């Protein structure tokens, strides 16, 4: 791997960096709030991973330009037909894409764009250079973000409860309190055991 290639994957380096940062924070930080922040960073890195997966160099947002859309409205049947074929083709070449070490998803997006191009050529509108990014990863991430927010909200709510009960959000202190409680419970149980022969004798 040459330097240029390595640098070309800079988005993945960012992802890895964020991922490790977040993971480290979760593991190393004993403050509950900070752990949750780490968790968030960790999750966000995955969002970036997905989004960069769908991105294609020089591609535009996957929105059909208005003029093409208008033209498509004229040939409604045709459009859906061809579009469908285009996507099928897109799936068909994935293996080929894999062989070359290119992202499959990128290939699909390319293919989708090509089909649009072919269609455009047929309808006479010049759109040779339109390349669309793959929208699906972004859509998936919308769901994942929602899940992430729900997780964070729940975690924060739980931390509030913990703080109410223990008076702290430092895990070390909480563990210490638990340990003291446990030791006290054992002492009580031991006392009870000592007391019980007396009870039975009576």
């Amino acid at each position, binding site marked *: 791997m040459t330097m240029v290639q390595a640098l070309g994957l800079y988005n993945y380096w960012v992802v890895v960096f964020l991922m490790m940062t977040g*993971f480290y924070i979760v593991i190393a930080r004993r403050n509950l709030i900070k752990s949750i922040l780490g968790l968030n960073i960790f999750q966000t890195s995955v969002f970036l*991973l997905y989004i960069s997966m769908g991105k294609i160099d020089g591609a535009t947002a996957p929105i059909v330009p208005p003029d093409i859309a208008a033209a498509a409205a004229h040939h409604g049947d045709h459009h859906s037909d061809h579009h469908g074929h285009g996507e099928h083709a897109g799936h068909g070449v994935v293996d080929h894409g894999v062989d070359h070490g290119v992202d499959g998803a990128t290939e699909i997006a390319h293919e989708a764009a090509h089909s649009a191009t072919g269609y455009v050529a047929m309808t006479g509108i010049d759109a040779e250079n339109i390349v669309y990014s793959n929208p699906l990863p972004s859509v998936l991430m919308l769901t994942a973000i929602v899940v992430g927010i729900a997780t964070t909200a729940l975690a924060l709510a739980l931390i509030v409860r913990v703080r109410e009960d223990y008076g702290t959000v430092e895990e070390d202190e909480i563990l210490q309190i638990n340990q003291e409680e446990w030791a006290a419970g054992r002492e009580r149980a031991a006392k009870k055991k000592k007391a019980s022969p007396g009870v039975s004798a009576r």
Partner: protein
Amino acid sequence: MIEANLPVLLIVIPMITAPLCVLAGRGRIAYAMSLLASVLVFAIAVALVIKVGDSGTIRYELGGWEPPYGIEYVVDRLSSFMAMFVSALGMIVLFYAPHSVNKEIQPSKHYLFYATYLLCMTGLLGICVTGDLFNVFVFLEISSLSSYALISLGRTRRAPLSALQYLIVGSIGATFILIGIGLLYQMTGTLNMADIASRIDTIDGPRTIMVAFAFLTVGLCVKMAVFPLHTWLPGAYTYAPSVVTCFIAATATKVSVYAFIRLVYGIMTPKFAFELLPLDSALMVFSLIGIFVASTAAVFQDDVKRLLAYSSVAQIGYMLLGVSMSNIDGLTAGIVHMFNHALIKGGLFMVAGCFILRLGSSRLSDWAGAGRTMPWTGFAWAIGGLGLIGVPMTAGFISKWLLLTAAMQNGWWPVAALMLLSSLLAVAYVWKVVETLYFSEPSDAVVASTEAPAGMLIPTYAIIGCVVLFGIWTTYSAGLAAAAAAELLGATP
């Protein structure tokens, strides 16, 4: 109309009922609605089992979008079997719930409790029937998030803390799964499981597939609570309300095992997982260590719920042993043990719930002599415990026997021997409780206690009865599991 839409109704009914419970705002109405929903769901699941048995795999296109564009639900033998027992346990635990919920959860939160319970069930059932990988992640998070919330409802202040610990570990696991799914998508351009399976080149494919598989495996191992990733489980099971523990212990980890089976046998191939990658040896080692460590830990617990929780970690090891054998007998054993263990552990946690209701404590030392004042509950423990040990005429024996013969067939002698030795530890921790129940001097609190209410005993005995029934009659446990295993292995020759 209804028949064609059964797969989606399985998910939609509990999912819609949950917000309705919240809208109802009253505990009793919410209970009635969730009970109704769970009965319906169980009926649907049974209908699906029958239908799949008659006419083979059902593929359902969600919203009419044909796969791979739309999400597809796939109900085959394994998933219908899973859906059936998850919904059955969900239903029975709900029948069991009211007394325990009244005692352990504030009345003002009852309706929220039932709503969350249904959401948890939705998530678990969703994992069973979906054929879309990203959908698995979503349902996994639905069930996990709702179980974090359910666990935090426990009585002590440990409950929210345990829930939070579970949340952190569980979210990391879920994110690992998300990364794995992402990498698989990157390689194949599709999220449909069957589609991925047909496109993936597991033999000469790029390393990304291995990495994806690794991420998914580790993520699922967290959710399955495989040793040494089990640390969240004992706390979560111990401090959750009794009803929640019954349900989650019986179903949640098993559904993750199901997802793992799908991953190995449905998406990847056993050849990839067990021959190209040494996953079978890794699983075997971790399972066996887990079985021994967790069983030993269980022997030394005073808190009965924690004891059972450690036992669950050990039992997951048996299931994974079966799965990792990658022959039809081993897989059958793994699948049937999911079912049998769900019954046994669900039943035992229900018994524990009865004792907790009457004695107000889950510590074994507070249960001393309770077998005399609560004879029915105590007897149920004895039967369930025999099932856990794997004594003949109980469900536990069937799975252990299958596992043993499968290990023999693979020529895994040491595994077979260790497996049998490990069940001696189960004897130790089950009998510890039995002796305390029957041979210890009861304290005043125990003497004053009375038998658990019939409303709890009847569902408990329904489950415990099943433990015995499926120890004698295996057509619908081992039979269905064997058919499911055959289908899984047949699909990927």
